[in-house]
C-alpha cells in the first residue's frame, strides 16, 4: 500500500470514530498533566461533547452512499449508521449518569473512567462498521478490554475487583471460543473479509466439509453470545453487574449488549446467510432449532433468576439476560424483519433501561444499599422519581403505550409471520413476560403500596440525572405511542440488499 492509495481513501466517513479517538487521546493526556487535586469535571464535559459531535457526524453521513475503505475492512452502510446512533445515544446517556456518580473512589480515578469509556465506545463503533473478521475482532477486543478495566475501576472495593476478575476470565474464555470458531472459517475459505468468505463458501469443494462450517457456526455464535449475556454465557452478568459502579453496569447492560447484537448480526447473518450446512440444506435453517433452544433458555433463565433476587443490581442483571433472550427471538425466526426488530427493540431497551438505572443510581446512593427494599414507599417520598421508574418498569414488562411493548409487538410479528410460525417460542416469550410481571410489578408494588423507607426524607435528584430521567421517560412513552418516529427513519433508509451485497468499493 503506497501513500497515494492511503490518501485516496475517503477518510471522512470515519469522522465519528476519529472524533471519539481524538477526544479519548486528549483526555488521557490531559488527565496525565492535571494536578492530583484538580477537579476532573471538565473532562466529563469534553467527553460528552465528543460523543455529541460524533453523533452529529453520523447524522451528517446519513445521505452518504455505501462506502468501504481500507480494503473493504471498514464499511459505512445504513446498518452501521443506524446502530452507531444507538451506541452513541446510549453512551451519551451513560456518561450523564457518570456525571453524578459520587462514590469517592470513582472520583479518584475519574480521568481513567472517561477515556476508557470512550475507547470502549470506539470499539463498539468499529464493530458496527466492520466487514472483516480482523477488524471485527479488534473492535470486540477494544470494547472488551476497556470494559474489563471499567468493571474494576473502584480499585479498593473488593466487590469491584471480584467483578472485574470474573469478567476478564469468562470474557477471555468467550473470546477464545469466538476466535477458535473464526479460525475454522478462515481455514475453510482462506479469507477474512466477510463478503469474500460468503463468496468462497459457495465453492463446491467446500460443500464437502460443511460439517466444519456448522461447527464454526456454533463456536462463533456461542462465543459472541457472551457479550449479550445470553445462555450459556450469562452467569457473569449478575456478579459483574453487582460489583461494578452503576454507570458501568448501565454501560455493560446497554451499550455493550447493543455491540454484541451488532456483531451477531454482522458476522453471523452475513457469513452464514448463503452457506450450506450438512447435506447442503441452508445452514441457518438447519441450526435454527438449536438457536431457538438458546433463546428460550436465555429468556427462561433470566426471568426465573430475577424472581429470586433481593439485590436490585442482580435483579437488573437477570432482567437484562431476559431482555437479551427476547431480542434473540427475531434472530432465530429467520424473518427479513430481523434488522428493524432488533434495532427498534435495542433503541427501546436503551431508553428504558438507562432510565431505570438512573433511578437506581439515585436511590442506591440515597439509601446506601442495594436491597430491593430501597423502593419502599418511594411514591410518597418522591412521586416524580417513582412515576418515572414506573414508566421504565412498565416498559420493561412490555405494557402497551410504552416503547417496550412496541418492541415486543414487533418481535411477535417476526416470530409468527413467516410460515411456519414459531408458536412455541412466542408462547415461551409470552409466558416469560408474565413471569417478569412478578418482579417488575413487585418493585412497583413496593413503591406504591408500602410505606416507610428512609424516614420520609425527600430525595434530591441531580440535574444530570434529572435530564436523563426526563429524556428517557419521554422517549419511552413517545416511542410507545408513536413507534413510527423511529421505524420510519429506519425503513426510509434501510435496504436489506445493501447489507448483504458488497457494493461501494473504494480502491
Amino acid at each position, binding site marked *: 500500500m503506497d501513500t497515494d492509495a492511503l490518501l485516496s481513501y475517503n477518510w471522512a466517513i470515519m469522522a465519528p470514530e476519529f472524533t471519539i479517538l481524538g477526544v479519548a487521546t486528549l483526555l488521557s493526556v490531559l488527565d496525565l498533566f492535571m494536578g492530583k487535586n484538580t477537579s476532573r469535571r471538565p473532562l466529563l464535559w469534553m467527553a460528552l461533547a465528543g460523543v455529541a459531535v460524533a453523533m452529529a457526524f453520523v447524522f451528517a453521513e446519513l445521505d452518504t452512499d455505501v462506502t468501504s475503505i481500507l480494503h473493504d475492512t471498514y464499511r459505512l452502510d445504513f446498518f452501521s449508521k443506524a446502530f452507531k446512533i444507538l451506541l452513541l445515544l446510549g453512551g451519551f446517556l451513560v456518561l450523564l449518569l457518570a456525571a453524578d456518580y459520587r462514590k469517592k473512589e470513582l472520583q479518584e480515578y475519574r480521568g481513567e473512567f472517561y477515556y476508557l469509556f470512550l475507547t470502549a465506545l470506539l470499539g463498539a463503533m468499529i464493530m458496527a462498521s466492520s466487514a472483516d473478521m480482523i477488524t471485527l475482532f479488534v473492535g470486540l477486543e477494544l470494547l472488551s478490554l476497556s470494559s474489563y478495566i471499567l468493571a474494576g475501576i473502584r480499585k479498593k472495593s473488593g466487590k469491584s475487583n471480584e467483578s472485574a476478575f470474573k469478567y476478564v476470565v469468562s470474557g477471555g474464555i468467550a473470546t477464545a471460543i469466538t476466535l477458535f470458531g473464526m479460525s475454522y472459517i478462515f481455514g475453510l475459505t482462506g479469507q477474512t473479509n466477510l463478503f469474500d468468505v460468503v463468496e468462497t463458501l459457495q465453492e463446491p469443494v467446500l460443500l464437502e466439509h460443511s460439517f466444519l462450517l456448522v461447527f464454526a457456526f456454533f463456536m462463533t455464535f456461542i462465543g459472541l453470545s457472551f457479550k449479550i449475556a445470553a445462555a450459556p454465557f450469562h452467569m457473569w452478568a449478575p456478579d459483574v453487574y453487582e460489583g461494578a459502579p452503576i454507570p458501568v453496569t448501565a454501560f455493560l447492560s446497554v451499550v455493550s449488549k447493543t455491540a454484541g447484537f451488532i456483531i451477531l448480526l454482522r458476522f453471523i447473518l452475513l457469513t452464514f446467510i448463503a452457506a450450506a450446512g450438512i447435506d447442503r440444506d441452508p445452514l441457518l435453517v438447519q441450526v435454527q432449532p438449536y438457536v431457538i433452544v438458546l433463546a428460550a433458555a436465555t429468556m427462561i433463565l433470566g426471568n426465573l433468576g430475577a424472581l429470586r433476587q433481593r439485590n436490585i443490581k442482580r435483579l437488573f442483571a437477570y432482567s437484562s439476560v431476559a431482555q437479551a433472550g427476547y431480542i434473540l427471538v427475531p434472530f432465530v425466526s429467520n424473518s*427479513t*424483519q430481523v434488522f428493524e426488530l432488533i434495532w427498534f427493540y435495542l433503541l427501546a431497551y436503551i431508553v428504558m433501561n438507562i432510565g431505570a438505572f438512573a433511578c437506581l443510581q439515585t436511590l442506591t446512593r440515597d439509601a446506601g444499599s442495594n436491597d430491593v427494599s430501597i423502593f419502599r414507599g418511594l411514591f410518597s417520598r418522591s412521586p416524580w422519581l417513582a412515576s418515572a421508574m414506573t414508566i421504565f418498569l412498565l416498559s420493561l414488562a412490555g*405494557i402497551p*403505550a410504552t416503547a417496550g411493548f412496541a418492541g415486543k*409487538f414487533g418481535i411477535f410479528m417476526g416470530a409468527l409471520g413467516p410460515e411456519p410460525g414459531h408458536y412455541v417460542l412466542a408462547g415461551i416469550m*409470552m*409466558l416469560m413476560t408474565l413471569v417478569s410481571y412478578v418482579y417488575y410489578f413487585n418493585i412497583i408494588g413496593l413503591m406504591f*403500596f408500602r410505606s416507610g423507607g428512609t424516614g420520609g426524607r425527600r430525595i434530591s435528584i441531580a440535574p444530570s440525572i434529572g435530564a436523563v430521567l426526563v429524556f428517557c421517560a419521554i422517549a419511552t412513552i413517545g416511542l410507545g405511542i408513536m413507534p413510527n418516529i423511529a421505524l420510519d427513519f429506519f425503513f426510509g433508509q434501510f435496504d436489506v440488499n445493501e447489507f448483504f451485497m458488497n457494493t461501494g468499493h473504494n480502491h
Partner: protein
Amino acid sequence: MSSMLLTLLIFSPLLSVLILLFVPSDDEKTLKMTGVLGALLPLIAAVTAFTAFDTAESGVQLEEVYQWITYEVFQANGELNYSIQYHIGADGLSMILILLTAFIAFLASIASFSIKEKLKSFYILFFILELGMLGVFSAQNLFLFFVFFELTLVPMFFLIGRYGYLNREKAAWSFLIYNGIGSAILLIAFVALFMKSGSMAFDQLKAVFALPEADLKEMYLTENFRMGILIAILAAFAVKLPVVPLHTWMLRVHAEAHPAIVMIHSGILLKIGAYGMIRFGLGIFPEEFKSLAGVIAVLGVVNLLYGAFLALSQSDMKKVLAYSSVSHMGIVLIGLAALNEYGIQGAVFQTVSHGLISALLFFLVGVLYNRRGSSQLHDFGGLASQMPVAAGLLLAGGLASLGLPGMSGFISEFMAFLGLFEVMPVTAAVGTIGLILTAVYVLRAVLGVTFGRVKREGTVYGADMTAAERFPAFMLLAAIIIIGCYPALLSGLLGATLESIKLGLGG
C-alpha cells in the same frame, strides 16, 4: 366537530388527570369536585355521541381512521406493508357499552367519596382506567383494542392494591396474573391473525374470513388455524368474564377492593369479556363459533349453577354478590351459545343489566360496610327499621338481581333462555334450576339483612344514607327499571348490530 367526537370522548378523562396534577393532595374538597366533574365530562360526551348516532343505520358510525404504524416486511416477492391504523368508531353494541361505562364511572366517582386517604392518586388512576375502558369499546382494530385493554390492567392493579380491605394486595396480584395470562394469549392470537391475514381492522378481518375455503387455504388460514385462534380468543376472554374455573381472581377482587372500584370492575370490566366474545368470537369466526356452541352452552350452565350454589352458602355479603356475578355471567354464555337473535340479544341485555345491578348492590354493601365495619351477614338484621332507604334500595336491587319482571334482569334472562330453549332444550332446562337458586340466595341474603331482629344488642347503624350516597343508588335503580319496563331502548340501538351478526351466522 362531530368527526372527532369519539376521540374527544375517549381522551376526555385525560383533561381531568392534568387538572388533578395541579390540585394539592390535601385539598379534599377540590379533589372530590374535580373527580366528579371529571367523570361527568365523558358522560356528557357519551350522550352527545349518542345523539349523533343514527340508530336506524347499521354498521360502524362516528368512525375515525388515521394511519398509525407501518411495518415494512421484505419478502421474496417484494415488499409488504403491514400497517396499523388508529381506527375508532361505534356500532350499536359499542354505543351501549360506552354509555354504560360513562354512566357507571360517573356514579363510581361519587361513590369514591368514602376514600379518605390518597384521594388524588385515586382519581388520577381512576381516569386512566376510564380512558382505557372507553377505548376498549370504541376500538375498531385489534391492536388498538389490545392497547386499551392493557391500559385498564395497570391502573386497576393499583386501584385494587392501594385502596380497599385487608387482603387487597393479594387480590391485586391475582388480578394481575390471571388477566396477564389472558392478555398473553390474546396478544399471540392477535399477532398471528395480523400476520396471516395482513390486517387488524375488524371489518377487513370479517371480510377475509368470509372468503371461500379455497382462498383461505392459500393464505395459510386453515381450518385448524381458525379454530385455534378462536379458542385462544375465547379462553382469553373467559378469564375476564370469568368462566369457571378461571374465576377465583374475580372473587378476591370483589371481596377486597374498594366498593367504587368493584362497581366499575363488575359493572364494566367483566363486560369486556362478553364484548370480546361477541366482537371477535361471533363477529369474526361465526362458522367456528357455531361448532363450539354446545361447549359454550354447557360452560354457561356450569357457571350459572356453580355460582348460584356457592352464593347460597356464603356468609359474607360481598362473597354472595361475587358468586352471584359468576352465576349471572353464565347467562351471557347461555345467550351466546344459542346463536339466535333472542339469545344474543339476551346476552347483551344481561351484560348491561348485570352491570347496573351489580354496581348498585356493591355500592350498597359499601355503604353498609362504612357504617358497620363488616359485611358479614350475621352482623346485620333489622336494617329496615333504622335505615329504611338503604333497606329499600337493597331489597329493590335484590329483586332486580333475581329477575323480577319489570326490571332489567328479567328481560335478559328471559331472552337468553328463550334463545337456548329453541336450540338446546335439555341444557336450557338444566340451566333453569339456576334461576330458582338465584331467587333463594338473593332472598336469603337480602331478607336476612333488611328484616328480622337487630342482631347483637345495642347495634346502631347510624344515620341513613346521605344525599351523596342516595344519588348514585337511585340513578342506578332508575336505569334498571327503565330498561326493565322499556327494553326497546336497548334493542333499538342493538338492532342493526344484531342484523350484521346474524348475517355472519348465515341467517
